[in-house]
């Protein structure tokens, strides 16, 4: 079964900086944007880019994530010619039980999966970024440039550049150097963690890397530098548009709030070209009561709004009681804000009950996180 390009989504990370939000779920499964989970973005991008086969590599808390992705039916990936495959770290015949030691090792351990599809190209993605991107256009560039590896890059500000892996490239886009979080960045082209490799090249480097005992088995730290050293052609593909790594409580809150003034990401698909698919629920229609008052907010089905909601993102089946106030906050599924309670600049985790009269984070300097997992 030959496929031109197979996508592999790295979805094994814990995301420790998301604190209680990832106490029991993997970061790619964290809720986002009122009805999505983060992994809906790369999966929808794959579906919309015409990619039929997607491997999802899981490790930390893989059960919920695996159940959610399932056969890929939510993203239209479960036809007779397409599939999403959950690839957890596992016990293997020749080496026994192992974990994924790094991003490159995760792919290395699934070479047999890739070989089955015998792809010309492999697309490596992260399961925890918010963006819309046509990977097919990136593949076109990869082919046109005759590259061995094409890396998607984002032009960031010079101040931000030291937080990223930075690609130093010539005018024509050819990468000559890679620096991980440089103190004095020479360029502002940050790697987005999105790679297209010509598979037969990638396979060679993965096999070689696996034999190096002190390697971190990481794409950024090991595979890319090894290819640069060998004089392979690495090409920087510049992406213009909304892209966010939601790695911290603060950045997750910010990315949700960004949606309220969203132009770039086009979540409402006003351009009618790029829908983000998700696991829709069967909750009742969203109902607003006599005293409801909602502005500058996103509210989804299952919600009952009897109080005030300002500048906030509310997920499925959130109930805001009479006289309650939710301001500049992200409220996850099933949370109950009782009568008269007030919430400011907070992330309220799944099924939390904010009891009547409670006031959360009135001074609203930093983002408050309220979770049943604390």
């Amino acid at each position, binding site marked *: 079964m030959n496929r031109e390009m197979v996508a592999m989504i790295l979805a094994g990370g814990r995301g420790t900086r998301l604190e209680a939000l990832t106490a029991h779920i993997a970061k790619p499964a964290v809720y986002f*944007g*009122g*009805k999505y989970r983060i992994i809906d973005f790369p999966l929808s991008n794959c579906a919309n880019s015409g990619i039929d086969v997607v491997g999802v590599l899981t490790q930390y808390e893989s059960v919920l994530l695996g159940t959610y992705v399932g056969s890929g039916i939510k993203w239209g990936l479960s036809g007779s010619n397409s599939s999403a495959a959950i690839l957890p770290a596992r016990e293997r015949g020749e080496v026994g039980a192992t974990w994924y030691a790094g991003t490159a090792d995760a792919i290395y351990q699934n070479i047999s999966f890739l070989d089955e599809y015998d792809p010309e190209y492999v697309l490596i993605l992260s399961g925890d970024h918010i963006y819309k991107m046509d990977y097919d256009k990136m593949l076109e560039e990869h082919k046109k440039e005759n590259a061995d590896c094409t890396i998607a890059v984002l032009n960031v500000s010079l101040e931000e550049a030291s937080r990223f892996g930075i690609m130093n490239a010539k005018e024509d886009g050819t990468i000559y150097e890679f620096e991980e979080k440089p103190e004095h960045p020479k360029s502002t082209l940050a790697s987005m963690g999105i790679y297209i490799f010509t598979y037969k090249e990638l396979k060679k480097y993965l096999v070689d890397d696996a034999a190096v005992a002190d390697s971190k088995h990481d794409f950024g730290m090991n595979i890319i530098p090894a290819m640069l050293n060998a004089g392979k052609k690495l090409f920087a593909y510049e992406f213009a548009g909304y892209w966010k790594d939601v790695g911290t409580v603060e950045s997750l809150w910010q990315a949700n709030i960004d949606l309220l003034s969203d132009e770039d990401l086009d979540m409402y698909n006003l351009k009618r070209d790029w829908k983000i698919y998700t696991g829709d629920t069967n909750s009742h*229609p*969203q*109902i607003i009561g006599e005293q409801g008052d909602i502005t*500058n907010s996103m509210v989804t089905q299952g919600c009952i709004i009897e109080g005030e909601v300002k500048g906030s993102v509310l997920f499925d089946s959130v109930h805001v009681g009479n006289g309650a106030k939710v301001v500049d906050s992200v409220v996850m599924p099933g949370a109950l804000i009782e009568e008269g309670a007030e919430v400011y600049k907070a992330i309220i985790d799944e099924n939390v009950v904010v009891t009547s009269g409670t006031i959360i984070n009135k001074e609203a300097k930093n983002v408050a996180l309220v979770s049943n997992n604390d």
Partner: protein
Amino acid sequence: MAKVIGLVNLHANVDYKGLTERRPAASVSFLGRYGIIDFALSNFSNSGIDSVGVLIKEKPRSLFKHMGLGNSWNFNSKSGGISLLYNEKYANNPHYNHDINNMIENKYFFNKTKADYVVIAPAHIITTLNYSEVVEAHEKSGSKITMVYKNIDDADKSFIGEKYVSVKNNKIIEVVVNKGNRKKRCMSLSTYVINLDYLMKLMKKSSSVSAFFDLSDILGYLCDEADIAAYEYRGYATCLNSLEAYYKHSLEFLDIEIFSTVFKSNWPIYTNTKDTPPSKYKANAKVKKGFVANGAIVDGHVENSIIGRDVVIGTGAVVKNSILLSGSVVGPGAVLENVILDKDSKVEVSKSLTGTSIEPLYVKEGDVV
């Protein structure tokens, strides 16, 4: 356990004027999120019946699209599934296009099921009826047919043109058309449990009595001799058999008390979902008493209204006592009162549209006004 199959019967006379010009009532949008048929289908699903046929009377296109493989209602496509039963032969012949002829035409569906009982329910009467409880009562009664009814005290205003029944010793002894001349009636919910073998006989019998008889006609004709058990349903039921009833009862659901009697966590209502983003309320939004479906973008005033998927309400627009179907657009500053906007219609030029509570102003699918 007895094997039960379900039938959603769309052969009732239901007409919502413009809304049903090109689609059956079953797939008319309801509460911003559903098709009317979703309630009957969800009742089957929640009652553990996963092999369901739909008796289609006419204009099936949008219904076919809505139903898909039936996965949305959990009808497992391997062990059960959904069968769309259509009677092409009589599609344009109103006297012959009735449920009995449809069942005769689609006999294969019944022959291959090996079911003991068939539950037949209409789409246009909205209930949260647990059919498995009716089947249980049916088995106990020893009758071959059970009819479900509900006592109502506003039969002068609702269920007009539907049938009411007279009940004696838990048996149906009379079936009569409700002309609205009395308040208290035992209304038939057009919902039956029938032994499959008896239903097969009934089809033959019916056409030999009158080729124009439908199921309710033959049951009315036979009720003296046929031993029809009566089952009283005490839950919520509303009959959407006219545009006026559809409009009035849809808006009634905005009463949180009615809403909570119907929407319960142990009785989910399933539908074909669309991956639309959450509804967005912009800076000038002011919404009170409303259903707002996902994908809607609101920057105006909404009161006592139902806003469908992907509807856009422009800055400063006012929408009152109205039902806006998916994809419709209300331009900035427009004022709508007692209006139904069909799918993808646009209010651009007209700045004020007003209907009455009896006859809401209707804008056709895709029209620009």
